[in-house]
């Protein structure tokens, strides 16, 4: 079975897009081969900035032949007096077989003439030539372009194509280019054209000879070179950074590394600024000592085999020096105006076109943070009012600094650093000042689901207050994220709120908090465009419920049904939802709860069916003369245990509450074994429905056990 090779030679593909496109090409090809009954042994990608390659090993050279039966005219039409009629001849001709090869088949409608037709499988070359170009054209690119024809789009112009089955070219065409055997080597380190002898490992070897390496090999080569270069400085190590590593892997075809240095004077600038300049702007790795302190060195990954003359190092150092000089200039310029003085400037910085300026936002967030602090205080936790008030007041002032204008990714961090460096208010003790600085510094945390939450409780409150204000304003304007559309990253911000509340264990009810955040806009111009409160509440509740579900499932790892059960009971309190999820998870393995889950489902069904029939439960269960023993027993059980469960639930001792509930099993089972609910006797029926309703309510305060998936468990 032959091997197949496809290489799309392209002008430099953006680093951030290569992996996804390469995967998509591989998946599309696998799906195509499957559809065409050409399952290959193995499909591997080979991608560099200038090519998307695909290596298919052991592909059948053609589709298997298919034999199928085609039905023709009925025997009575096909034969007259034992002789074939023109209809029979016509059918044989159409089927492409001799008359003698036709068969007689019997169906429900009678006897018919039939032919067995063998359809020859098409060759793999033919199928790939015809279909692969369509697959290539459908690859998704976050941003694409046209160059040859207005309706042909790709990420960048395609410049060559290689498509081979073993040693032979197949006549595939894409964007006006015909496939051949000629690939291209490294821009500077090869002579250009590379003739590929055949598909398979010979391709990789030919490219390696032309100084083009595959992804895994490049990453390994970079890691090794980073280690080697760092070893020349005693005790040093390079700052591990996978996303930077991925970027440089995707920017090089044959990487090497140089170690450069900078003037130690620059170490007086904050490390955050230096690392950002190196990483985000120059794509250099930072170097630190054994204690994690930054060293005046950097590592640059080159797309060439070395720098024997030191010319590249000299150039890289020169550029970094200019960048650091800029940063220092900004840092010094910014110090001329304190954060406090910058507060006024926020009046001219738009937060969102309908929601006013950052000055107005600051006032709202300050107010919201005081309210959040009050609630937290009620649970006995201390939030220093002097810290949170000042931090909220200065939080956004760094948006007016030159440093943040230049390095937007450092917003918040720069504010924190300036707050630390400035006196702020001479009456403030240093500890308070540092606490304010830390809260400002951490205000955007967590920036992703993996990122850490703010260090202090004031930082947490500021982070929550800022995001809640944004979400409230956007939702009130009706700018709700939908599908892949979330231009203001509201989902990320809500995820952050949930995570901070959960990890800091804050007693903040989500809906009340959002209502208060919404109230912060009262009297502002924006309010005229707001949706009504009921719709606001509804959309915010649904939104946060989704976010909470995501947090419990994807970050805390609770099972899907546990999360559903817990949130069905209540989804308004993050910390409480986590506690209930944990309690439910702990008892779920018990056979009692599997039985209770099943019983809850049954109760819910009975109640629903009754409702559909217009039968309502009695207002309250009563002991009737005709009540069955099991019925009375269950009622008595609820009377005794209901209050106990409720008391534990109030104390949030969910584990203990669930242990009591587990003892209900035998009573419930006995009831369902012996008692029929939907009986003719109206009074008995209503009474039993009332009992079920009470019971279901008792069971569902911690989690709705009818949501628990019972199959395959226990």
């Amino acid at each position, binding site marked *: 079975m032959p091997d197949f090779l496809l290489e799309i030679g392209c002008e430099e593909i953006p680093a951030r897009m290569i992996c996804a496109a390469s995967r998509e090409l591989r998946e599309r090809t696998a799906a195509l081969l499957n559809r065409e009954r050409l399952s290959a042994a193995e499909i591997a990608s080979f991608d560099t900035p200038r090519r998307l390659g695909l290596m298919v090993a052991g592909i059948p050279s053609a589709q298997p032949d298919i034999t199928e039966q085609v039905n023709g005219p009925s025997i009575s039409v096909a034969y007259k007096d034992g002789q074939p009629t023109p209809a029979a001849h016509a059918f044989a001709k159409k089927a492409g077989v001799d008359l003698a090869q036709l068969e007689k088949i019997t169906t429900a409608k009678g006897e018919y003439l039939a032919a067995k037709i063998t359809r020859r499988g098409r060759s793999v070359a033919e199928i790939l030539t015809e279909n692969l170009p369509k697959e290539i054209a459908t690859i998704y690119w976050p941003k694409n372009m046209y160059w040859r024809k207005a309706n042909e789009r790709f990420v960048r112009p395609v410049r060559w194509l290689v498509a081979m089955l073993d040693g032979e070219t197949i006549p595939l065409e894409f964007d006006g280019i015909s496939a051949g055997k000629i690939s291209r080597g490294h821009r500077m380190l090869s002579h250009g054209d590379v003739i590929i002898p055949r598909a398979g490992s010979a391709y990789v070897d030919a490219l390696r000879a032309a100084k083009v390496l595959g992804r895994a090999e490049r990453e390994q080569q970079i890691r090794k070179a980073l280690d080697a270069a760092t070893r020349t400085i005693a005790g040093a190590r390079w700052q591990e950074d996978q996303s930077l590593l991925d970027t440089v892997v995707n920017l090089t075809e044959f990487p090497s590394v140089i170690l450069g240095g900078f003037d130690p004077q620059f170490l007086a600038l904050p490390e955050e600024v230096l690392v950002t300049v190196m990483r985000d702007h120059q794509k250099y790795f930072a170097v630190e000592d054994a204690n994690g302190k930054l060293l005046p060195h950097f590592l640059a990954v080159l797309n*060439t085999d070395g720098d024997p003359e030191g010319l590249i190092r000299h150039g890289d150092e*020169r550029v970094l*020096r200019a960048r650091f000089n800029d940063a220092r200039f900004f840092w010094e310029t910014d110090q001329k105006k304190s954060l406090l003085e910058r507060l006024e400037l926020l009046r001219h910085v738009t937060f969102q076109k309908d929601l006013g300026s950052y000055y107005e936002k600051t006032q709202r967030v300050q107010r919201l943070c005081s309210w959040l602090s009050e609630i937290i205080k009620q649970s006995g936790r201390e939030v220093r009012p002097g810290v949170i008030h000042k931090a909220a007041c200065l939080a956004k002032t760094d948006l007016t600094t030159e440093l943040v204008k230049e390095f937007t990714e450092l917003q918040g961090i720069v504010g924190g650093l300036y707050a630390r460096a400035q006196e702020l208010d001479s009456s403030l003790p240093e500890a308070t000042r540092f606490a304010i600085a830390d809260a400002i510094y951490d205000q955007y945390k967590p920036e992703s689901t993996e990122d850490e939450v703010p260090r202090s409780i004031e930082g947490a409150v500021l982070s929550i207050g800022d995001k809640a204000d944004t979400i409230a304003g956007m939702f009130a304007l009706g700018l709700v994220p939908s599908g892949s559309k979330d231009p203001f990253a509201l989902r990320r911000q809500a995820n952050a709120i949930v995570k901070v509340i959960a990890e800091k264990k804050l007693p903040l009810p989500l809906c009340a908090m959002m209502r208060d955040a919404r109230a912060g806009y009262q009297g502002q111009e924006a309010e005229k465009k707001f949706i009504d409160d009921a719709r606001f509440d509804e959309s915010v509740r649904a939104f946060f419920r989704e976010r909470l579900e995501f947090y419990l499932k994807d970050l805390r790892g609770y099972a899907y049904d546990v999360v559903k059960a817990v949130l069905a009971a209540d989804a308004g309190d993050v910390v409480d939802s986590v506690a209930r999820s944990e309690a439910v998870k702990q008892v779920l393995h018990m056979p009692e709860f599997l039985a209770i889950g099943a019983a809850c489902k049954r109760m819910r069904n009975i109640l629903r069916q009754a409702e559909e029939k217009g039968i309502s439960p009695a207002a309250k269960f009563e002991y009737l003369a005709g009540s069955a023993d099991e019925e009375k027993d269950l009622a008595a059980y609820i009377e005794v245990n209901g209050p106990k469960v409720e008391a534990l639930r109030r104390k949030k001792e969910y584990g203990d509450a669930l242990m009591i509930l587990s003892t209900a099993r035998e009573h419930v089972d006995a009831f369902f074994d012996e008692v029929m609910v939907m009986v003719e006797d109206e009074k008995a029926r209503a009474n039993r429905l009332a009992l079920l309703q009470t019971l279901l309510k008792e069971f569902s305060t911690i989690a709705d056990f009818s949501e628990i998936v019972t199959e395959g468990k226990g």
Partner: protein
Amino acid sequence: MLQQPYDVEVGAGTMAPETFLRVLGPKPYKVAYVQPSRRPADGRYGENPNRLFKHMQLQVILKPPPENVQELYLESLAAIGIDLRQHDIKFEEDNWEAPTLSAWGVGWQVMLDGLEITQFTYFQQCGGVDLFPISAELTYGLERIAAFLQDVDSIYDIIWARDPQTGHATTYGDVRLADELQFSAYNFEAADVEKTWKHFELYEAECRALLMHYKFEGADPEKHRFPVLAAYDLCLKCSHLFNILDARGAISVTERVGVIARVRALAVGIAKAWVDQQKSDFASKEKSDEPEPVLEKRIQKGKLSPVGF
């Protein structure tokens, strides 16, 4: 084609008519020119070694882009004395967009030893018009490249010229420092906001009034006389005055979007008129290298309306 710099203030080489207008329409065009580009907000009073109010761009437009445009570009670096085998060159994604011109493209910033030396863009749209054929735009940052070649840390230390007799060097600073200082002072401090707004409004009104008179319909034999180019100069004036007001801090962030939209409206109107004017100009003058059917159609169109109005 080598062209001279355009003599109206522009923020980038792209804004010179040799790019903004020439990339429109079907006519192939290849041009290079140096363009002083003024960005008032980037001024640093001559104190920052890397930033300038006015810098020089070498602008190259290749319409349509040749197949080997990247290779040609790399050869241009070799031609100015950069041995690429000794250096590290990377094409890193950078997509260019100019909202005031309703223009955008995709491409790269070309990095030479960590230094961005060129913006390489495949134009897709200009003045709100989808381009066909597209153009490749190469914008070389001349100060950066000169500082790199001469290995100096400050732009102001670049040697601009050396006296062949005495060997005396005249630096970039000697030539340009006063320029940077004084224009920074003007743009950030001295420009009269009210008057600058007034200038802006006057130029805008004049440009709009002109465009209103452009007639798209019909084959007006006088069409080629219509001063679209003058309208474009007025639009460039607006753009530059906007930049001064911006540097002066006279435009709030909220206002900004609106003013950009006003300039864009002019640019889009001019692009449309230019495309239309070129079409009729093309039809009346060029008859040789057009494919037959197109030619026929155009002649026919001319016959249908022989008299202008």
